[in-house]
């Protein structure tokens, strides 16, 4: 079946602009995660959704970052007033949500802030 998809695959933006990154999880997966992969920080957790709720936002680096999930499916990560340090690969993962369930990762969105 279809895996996790993300769009766009690449995004180049200017400092100060807002960007939206999209994630389509595997159908039926109630848990959705956003991670960030950068050279300096490795792989970092950003936010976790269970259904449309986000019980864990502890990894969001600043209030410029926000995310939402609608219909228990698609999620959007929004970065306002982008900074150069936001440049990274943003990864989305989904799982069935049970304890120990495997997280399936999307291909990522590479964000470059000029």
């Amino acid at each position, binding site marked *: 079946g279809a895996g996790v998809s993300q769009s766009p695959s690449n995004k180049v933006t200017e400092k100060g602009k807002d960007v939206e990154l999209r994630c389509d999880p595997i159908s039926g997966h109630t*848990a959705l*995660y956003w*991670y960030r992969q950068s050279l300096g920080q*490795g*792989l*970092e*957790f950003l936010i*976790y959704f*269970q259904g449309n709720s986000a*019980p*864990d936002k502890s*990894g969001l680096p600043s209030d410029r970052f926000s995310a939402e999930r609608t219909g228990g499916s698609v999620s959007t990560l929004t970065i306002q007033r982008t900074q150069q340090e936001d440049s990274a690969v943003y*990864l989305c*993962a989904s*799982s069935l*949500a049970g*304890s*120990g*369930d*495997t*997280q*399936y*990762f*999307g*291909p*990522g969105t590479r964000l470059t802030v000029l």
Partner: protein
Amino acid sequence: AQSVTQLDSQVPVFEEAPVELRCNYSSSVSVYLFWYVQYPNQGLQLLLKYLSGSTLVESINGFEAEFNKSQTSFHLRKPSVHISDTAEYFCAVSDRSGTYKYIFGTGTRLKVLA
């Protein structure tokens, strides 16, 4: 809080030689343990995971990892590597309740030489 340490950032090894990629974790609670692989220009894929039961877990392509509770380790091994195993390998832990978010190590880049 949990943390994962992968001490080796790069491991070069000749084809058909054995390899061990080290992973140590720290946690105040019981965890699940995972190894993910990222081939060049591809997304993260699950290699194997430990949830409970037998402490030795195996993947379909010849890798194995052993959970050692006393040493808080989950080292990945393969008795004979192939060129195609060249990739970056990430160790991760998740808690057994709550959000199940992953805490990743910094990764080990395995380079198999002909």
